[in-house]
């Protein structure tokens, strides 16, 4: 027993050193970027120039406080994803940020300085309609929450409910808005579409109904076209007229109709006019000035005075308007286009429409970005009592730009990166000089002498570049360190000697593509695809790498609309982000499957095949050469299709005329189980060793079938006693089921990694209420059937399958295996945990040959004795305290060094690092002690010199004796 435990501890110590981060490596080759997602609400902290806080609530159910000077996060709180954490509304009063979460489920108040909760209360059920701060006598004490059938008032200080009242006739009236103007009443506004408007006034103190009126409004369908202006006047708009209604009047009034024509206004054809008003303080009534949007680029500032509407100023063209208040002054910011690439933002006084001097800021539009969508203005009084401002511009592509007078961009945030869908890493191109050398080999030989001359000239260029590099080093060394900037630009991008720096091409759900330098995290290019549906699926493929020098690298993005299935291709250069001049084929029919063949056309672009719903194949590129090539190899091109709704897996073969024939079909009955995932192996994976040497010196050969698919199914019966998770290993060419495993009393979500000769999957054990890992390993046995080439059609023997399961003491979010250049380095599993940590778990722990009783042979094989629970050590967290929130995917890529694997984890945040699963065996470690080794060498050298001299003297003396 002691021996056993000694072995265990020995192994632990071995791994202790295998994949940990040293403290001095922090930030050396890793970086993290934190995002919040598409902004829904933005508030500036205080109307003073020194204020730095910006409060954001986003579509990703996040509330965050940003430093408005740098754009960095002060704090961020990430709620549950999905509708349960959805932020319905954010209201800010002083240091408190009150929000309603999850369609009226919770009411929360945040302390915005600390980032902690003041209080949280559960609201009664009912779908959320509206909420507002309620004030009396210039102090804000309550918050009102309007649900579909009830209104409640809560204290702002502790969240306790003051009163709750049911709304009258809530089954017919749609209550949509709540208004309070500092008087002792809360008005609830509802509408019966195309019939009438209902107004209920509640007493703030006890919730008693003070007044209940109903006003005929047959033209009104929703209250979204209405605002409250001035001292409680409801103003609505339709395409021909404005309507006003004083809320506080005693007698049952009618809506006063004012034709837009009488004001000299006209709505743009087909445009629904919009009203914008502002209420600077919740305890006071709104301003009597308001904007009316008459067209996409036409706004007008109007004033309501004594029941008369008068235009103050006409803004055309003006694409965006916004109000901002500082102290007693309210200003209107107006963004109007200057030319195609720039817009100007100008402040106007709200009460007169007068233009404020020196307040113009030029906002440059990104030609590869989206249009501006909203303005958030932070106005403040300067020392000379004039109004200064900073402005946050929110764009269609989720980018945030923060501008300061006079037109300086303080920071930009690319919030589209909060939702990365897929990514690839592309090698950087060679430098000009390296390319020059390479180009020499590509050209046709033209005589001996010119070749020699060419070689000499290129060597000369290399020498020149080297001297220039030395000079730059010398020049930089003289400058103080702070001034030396290692700015990365597209021009200076070049591959480093170990190919550790790559271009990360990221595709986001909003349809914006990014090119990010993997070393520094700098966004080098971005490209916004304008007409991408919000629910589109993306698949990114590298058709041509940078290895074929005169031809530019080429990536192809397949964009598929999830509803119609129609696809389109976007072909671009991954290094510069430019759209390629090659016209991709038009895809008239829904795309079912795409596959990138290892075949290349004469320009070294890999051939992409797209299969439509009639099983017809489109090739891209489709030159004559490619078609000829495809005809030759058509009989050996197979592909599979998955129809999870019918539980059908089918295999096809390509015919010479680019039609297909069905070869096999496997039906998994959908009444019992449904297919949740189909995983193949990665195409760029290398396996170095064909087998494993056993303790008795025999070799256990791995079953390395490149066509193997792991099909994961979950039972349709979710009862905890009867639910199960199934895994099928199917050969993708022949349809042969190689192995089948069922995990009883288990349910999903199942995460699965399929690589080399193993499949690792994780599921939830319903009986023991824990997460479990299971590993399947396939071996051919001690003899190989055909050691030179693998063919799915000629493998008579089924592989031996070994399986083992383990307890994992944490839920997991995602899982991926490390990948290296030649596959010599041992593999690790990278496991993303909900806490944001990324665990690097050695594959050795997930080895089905782990023995229960340790024998001499298994000890020789370095097998760890079986233990039911897998360890989680914080030293194995590759991202130490740089947690990645809501990690959704981990991407691994090999580098030029065999020991090193590049890792990118993405979710809400993006984290890039390098991992060394078997330590850095091929380069000197970065803590290599140069001083010690050189001092020892020098010491030894001198010691020999001295002892030689001494020996000489001694010999001489002896000779004299």
């Amino acid at each position: 027993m002691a021996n056993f435990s000694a072995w265990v501890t020995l192994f632990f110590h071995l791994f202790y050193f295998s994949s940990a981060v040293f403290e001095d490596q922090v930030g050396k080759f890793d970086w993290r970027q934190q995002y919040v997602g598409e902004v829904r609400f933005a508030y500036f902290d205080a109307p003073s120039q020194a204020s730095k806080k910006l409060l954001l609530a986003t579509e990703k159910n996040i509330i965050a406080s940003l430093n408005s000077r740098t754009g960095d996060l002060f704090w961020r709180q990430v709620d549950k994803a999905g509708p349960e954490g959805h932020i319905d509304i954010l209201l800010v009063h002083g240091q408190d940020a009150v929000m309603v979460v999850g369609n009226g489920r919770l009411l929360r108040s945040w302390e915005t300085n600390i980032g902690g909760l003041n209080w949280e209360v559960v609201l009664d059920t009912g779908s959320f309609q509206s909420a507002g701060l309620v004030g009396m006598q210039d102090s804000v004490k309550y918050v009102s929450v309007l649900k579909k059938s009830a209104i409640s008032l809560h204290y702002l200080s502790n969240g306790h409910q003051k009163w709750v009242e049911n709304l009258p006739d809530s089954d017919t009236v749609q209550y949509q808005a709540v208004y309070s103007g500092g008087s002792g009443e809360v008005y609830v506004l509802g509408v019966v579409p195309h019939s009438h408007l209902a107004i209920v006034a509640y007493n703030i103190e006890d919730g008693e109904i003070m007044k209940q009126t109903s006003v005929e409004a047959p033209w009104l369908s929703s209250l979204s076209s209405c605002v409250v202006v001035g001292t409680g006047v409801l103003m609505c708009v339709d395409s021909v007229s404005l309507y006003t209604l004083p809320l506080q009047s005693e007698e049952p009034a009618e809506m006063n109709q004012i034709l837009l024509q009488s004001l000299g206004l006209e709505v743009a054809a087909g445009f629904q006019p919009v009203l914008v008003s502002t209420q600077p303080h919740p305890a006071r009534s709104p301003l009597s000035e308001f904007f009316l949007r008459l067209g996409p680029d036409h706004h007008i500032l109007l004033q309501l005075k004594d029941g008369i509407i008068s235009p103050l100023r006409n803004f055309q063209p003006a694409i965006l308007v916004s109000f901002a208040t500082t102290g007693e002054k309210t200003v209107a910011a107006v963004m109007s286009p200057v030319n195609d690439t720039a817009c100007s933002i100008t402040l106007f006084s709200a009460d007169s429409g007068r233009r404020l001097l020196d307040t113009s800021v030029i906002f440059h539009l990104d030609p590869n970005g989206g249009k501006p969508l909203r303005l958030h203005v932070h106005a403040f009084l300067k020392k000379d009592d004039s109004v200064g401002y900073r402005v946050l511009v929110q764009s269609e592509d989720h980018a945030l730009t923060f501008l300061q007078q006079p037109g300086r961009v303080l920071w930009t945030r690319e919030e589209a990166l909060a939702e990365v869908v897929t990514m690839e890493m592309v090698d950087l191109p060679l430098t000009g000089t390296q390319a020059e050398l390479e180009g020499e080999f590509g050209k046709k030989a033209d005589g001996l002498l010119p070749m020699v001359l060419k070689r000499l000239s290129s060597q000369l260029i290399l020498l020149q570049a080297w001297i220039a590099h030395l000079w730059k080093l010398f020049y930089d060394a003289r400058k103080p360190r702070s001034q030396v900037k290692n700015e990365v630009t597209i021009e200076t991008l070049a591959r480093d000697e170990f190919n550790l720096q790559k271009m990360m091409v990221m595709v986001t759900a909003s349809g914006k593509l990014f090119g990010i330098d993997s070393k520094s995290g700098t966004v080098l290019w971005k490209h916004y695809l304008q007409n991408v549906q919000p629910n589109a699926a993306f698949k990114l493929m590298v058709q041509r790498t940078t290895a074929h020098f005169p031809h530019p690298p080429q990536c192809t993005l397949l964009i598929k609309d999830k509803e119609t299935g129609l696809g389109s291709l976007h072909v671009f250069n991954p290094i510069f982000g430019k759209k390629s001049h090659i016209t991709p084929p038009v895809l008239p029919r829904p795309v079912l499957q795409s596959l990138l063949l290892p075949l290349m056309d004469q320009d070294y672009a890999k051939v992409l095949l797209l299969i439509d719903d009639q099983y017809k194949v489109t090739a891209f590129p489709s030159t004559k050469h490619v078609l000829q090539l495809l005809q030759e190899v058509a009989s050996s091109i197979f592909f599979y299709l998955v129809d999870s709704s019918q539980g059908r897996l089918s295999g096809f073969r390509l015919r010479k005329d680019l039609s297909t024939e069905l070869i096999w079909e496997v039906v998994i009955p959908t009444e019992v189980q449904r297919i949740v995932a189909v995983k193949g192996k990665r195409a760029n994976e290398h396996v170095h060793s064909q087998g494993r040497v056993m303790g008795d010196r025999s070799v256990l050969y791995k079953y390395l079938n490149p066509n193997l698919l792991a099909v994961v199914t979950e039972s349709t019966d979710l009862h905890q006693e009867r639910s199960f998770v199934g895994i099928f290993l199917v050969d993708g060419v022949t349809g042969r089921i190689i192995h089948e495993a069922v995990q009883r009393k288990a349910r999903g979500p199942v995460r699965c990694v399929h690589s080399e000769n193993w499949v690792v999957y994780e599921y939830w054990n319903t009986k023991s209420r824990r997460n479990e890992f299971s590993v399947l390993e396939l071996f051919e046995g001690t003899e190989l059937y055909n050691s030179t080439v693998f063919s799915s059609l000629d493998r008579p023997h089924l592989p031996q399958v070994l399986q083992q399961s383990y307890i994992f003491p944490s839920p997991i979010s995602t899982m991926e295996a490390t990948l290296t250049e030649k596959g010599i380095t041992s593999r690790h599993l990278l496991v993303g945990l909900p806490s944001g940590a990324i665990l690097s778990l050695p594959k050795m722990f997930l080895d089905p040959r782990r023995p229960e009783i340790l024998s001499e042979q298994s000890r020789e094989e370095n097998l760890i004795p079986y233990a039911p629970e897998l360890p989680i050590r914080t030293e194995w967290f590759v991202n130490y305290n740089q947690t990645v929130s809501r990690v959704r995917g981990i991407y691994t890529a090999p580098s030029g060094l065999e020991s090193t694997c590049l890792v990118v984890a993405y979710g809400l945040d993006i984290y890039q690092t390098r991992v060394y699963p078997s330590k850095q065996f091929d380069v000197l470690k970065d803590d290599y002690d140069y001083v010690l080794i050189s001092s020892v060498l020098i010491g030894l050298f001198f010691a020999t010199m001295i002892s030689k001299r001494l020996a000489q003297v001694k010999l001489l003396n002896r000779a004299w004796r």
Partner: protein
Amino acid sequence: MLPQWSVSRTWIVFSSLFAICNAFSDMESGPGSAATQTNGDGFKIEGRAVVPGVKAQDWISTARVLVEGEEYVGFFRTDGSFAVNDVPSGGSYVVEIVSPVYRFEPVRVDISSKGKMRARLVNYIKTSEVVRQPYPLQMRSNGPHSYFMKRETWGWTDFLMNPMVMMMVLPLLIIVLLPKVVNTNDPEMRREMEQSMNMLNPNHELPDVSEFMTKLFSSKSSGKSGGGGKGGKSGALKRR
């Protein structure tokens, strides 16, 4: 004294009975399945977390309470207390405090179908074992996370304490220093040393093991060594 003792004992009996009952009811009820989630009457898991020596407001902005992964999420109040709302009854949940800086042990909270709560230690191997924890939860951090490995630094002490170095250095010291410290020419000293040797080796009749071994081996290989000697002799002769 006596009554107090008996009272406490009965209390123990009661509490253990309660634990057993709960364990049984617990076995029947599974985790929050879809059916229990929809009925909406959720329960609240409450507690407080403390990091010794650190004010709550310095660490809560990066910390969260996760129940069963990210199934339910709770946030900290500014005083370090927390509540996770809308957790359905009739289930068992692992409550974890995640903070990038401080480490907390997870706790399993069982909510019976009637809404009774109890907390116990998480044991993934013996899932039905009950080691009670206080409820409302009292979570105490056991220090910061250790993410980093210590670099192996080179120091004189490490070098000298290395067993190989010790094995080399100590005999060297004895060989060099001992003859200098002990004056072997002094006859008195020599006699003393001989005596101490005799003390170590009291009965002369028994042959020394090492001597015996050398005799044994030398007798065995005498033929060979003789041959070697001859060769040497002949070589010497030639050289002459």
